[in-house]
């Protein structure tokens, strides 16, 4: 753990059914994700909560924040729609995987009900 990257994340990539003909159910399932990177030091920062939740439960907050997740991996390692799981078990979908010489700066949405 460092001052700049105080958190730890793993990155997985969703995959759909394989094969031809009748294949298995199509859905975004954690069990069908393949590992891209693990134990990566990261910084997870909240940005403005302006996104409305797609479906809210009565007890939910009205808006959902977006998150920027910074980490250092080679360019091309992660892609949009990859899933980031943080050290507390929260899952995020990468909406934009932006790479600079300092590493990745990913705009993410938290995957929650």
């Amino acid at each position, binding site marked *: 753990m460092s001052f700049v990257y105080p958190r730890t994340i793993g990155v997985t990539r969703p995959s759909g059914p394989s094969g031809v003909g009748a294949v298995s159910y199509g859905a975004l399932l954690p069990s*069908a994700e393949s590992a891209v990177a693990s134990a990566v030091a990261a910084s997870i920062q909240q940005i403005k909560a302006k996104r409305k939740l797609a479906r809210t439960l009565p007890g939910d907050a009205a808006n959902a924040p977006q998150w920027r997740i910074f980490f250092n991996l080679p360019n091309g390692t992660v892609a949009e729609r990859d899933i980031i799981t943080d050290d507390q078990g929260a899952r995020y979908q990468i909406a934009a995987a932006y790479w600079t010489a300092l590493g990745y700066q990913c705009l993410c949405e938290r995957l929650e009900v």
Partner: protein
Amino acid sequence: MADLSDVQNALVAVTAQALYPAGTAQPSAAGVPCRVYAGWPVPASLDADLAAGITHVTVFPRDEERNTTRFPADWQTLSVTPPTLTLTVSGQTVTVGGAIAIPQNAVMLANGQPYVYALQGGDTLGGVATALAALIAVDIPGTVSSGAVVTLPADAHDLVARVGGHGVSIREIRRQVRHFQLTVWSDTPSHRDAVAQPMDVALAAMKFLTLTDGMAARLIYQGSPVSDQQQKPRLFQRDFIYSVEYATTQTADDTAITQDQLNVGVKVDGASQYDIISTTYY
């Protein structure tokens, strides 16, 4: 029981058969690889597959639904499994034969009383004979077994042996019409058309789907919108909308009746209950 997912799976199977009539080891009827499944595409996989020229066909139930329940919920026989065990009466002996399979009941009537042994996993023919002999010997001392043969004493009378099998009953407890959407996701209009055509013919030719519970579901064409709206990301779609009328069913395991019981009773005038004075088994 038939459920929404059974209809979905049946539509997947029909579509896959139409696209791969010679099996998935052979090229598809459309000439392009096709994945057919219930649910929705995973976006990243769909992007990769479209780039590779692979077409997806998805099956999903739409929200439109109508309750069309109109038939009595009477039980009907769905299947009967004949007994594999045999019991043969000869004089004062009963020979256990055939093959052990569960569930089955081995039944003997002797001196007007029934003796029922439910076969257990791991039973042998000799074990069934021993179990029956033990049940009968409680009332008819001198009943013994040797191997697969039960021998009753000479004063035992009215010997009858029966084996009861089992079956499955089914009843329709609800009926509904639900719309299902089959969507072709292709990378080019020509691939979309090549995949859609054999699907269209196969579905149009099919009036009823057979579901896993043995019931038939009525299939009626509702429409087929085509969309090129997503052509910028190389996606060409065609939907087939079908209404499917299917029954929600309930099944029950049944055991064959092996003996009847007749109670004869009297009731004193003014009393609330009958007093049973004799019981006869047949």
